[in-house]
């Protein structure tokens, strides 16, 4: 399908790259996002809303940057989204870019869980789940030490 993006222009996206987000992203909406990546091993991907050209979020695999990151959901939330074991889902976190590489951060509080073509942005109830964690911090041990 063809997707218009204010960031990337007109994109041709294979339909299996389009994910349904029944409740959208928290506070910003959207219902169908194309998961875009250029390089197989690139660190970052984008979730581009297929009908809202202005809505695209950069995302990454949190475990590349934070090996001890955990996603914990309440039983109610897990049941609601139909994912009882977060390890069965693909986990992505939203990246907030910054001119200063040291300030580029990941949102570990509200990860995105993707399973069977459906995505949900959830609130992580793990004890370590900062809203803005510098990508280069390496994770919680270094934060605790610093």
């Amino acid at each position: 399908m063809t997707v218009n993006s204010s960031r990337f222009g007109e994109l041709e996206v294979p339909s299996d790259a389009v994910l349904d987000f029944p409740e959208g992203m928290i506070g910003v909406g959207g219902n169908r996002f194309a998961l875009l990546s250029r390089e197989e091993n690139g660190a970052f991907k984008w979730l581009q809303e297929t009908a809202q050209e202005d809505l695209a979020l950069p995302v990454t695999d949190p475990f590349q940057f934070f090996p001890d990151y955990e996603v914990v959901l309440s039983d109610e939330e897990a049941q609601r989204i139909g994912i009882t074991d977060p390890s069965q889902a693909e986990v992505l976190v939203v990246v907030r870019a910054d001119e200063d590489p040291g300030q580029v951060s990941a949102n570990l509080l509200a990860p995105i869980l993707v399973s069977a073509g459906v995505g949900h942005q959830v609130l992580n109830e793990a004890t370590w789940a900062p809203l803005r964690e510098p990508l280069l911090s390496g994770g919680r041990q270094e934060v605790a030490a610093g």
Partner: protein
Amino acid sequence: MLTISRRVGERILIGDGIVIEVVEVSGGSVRLGITAPKELRIYREELWERVKAENEAAARADFNAPGARPGPA
């Protein structure tokens, strides 16, 4: 905005599926019990606002990391 007075143990019904009960009142704080259809998401407002602001900032930010810009599929 509708304003309703309730005592501890009393409830408010919103439609047929949402029940809010005053569980405890202590000092300046109120504990509420909420029963709602499971497909509804329930947030503390300030947490929702912080995540919303972060999503908006991420969607706006310039992003020039190598390999981050997708090309034509």
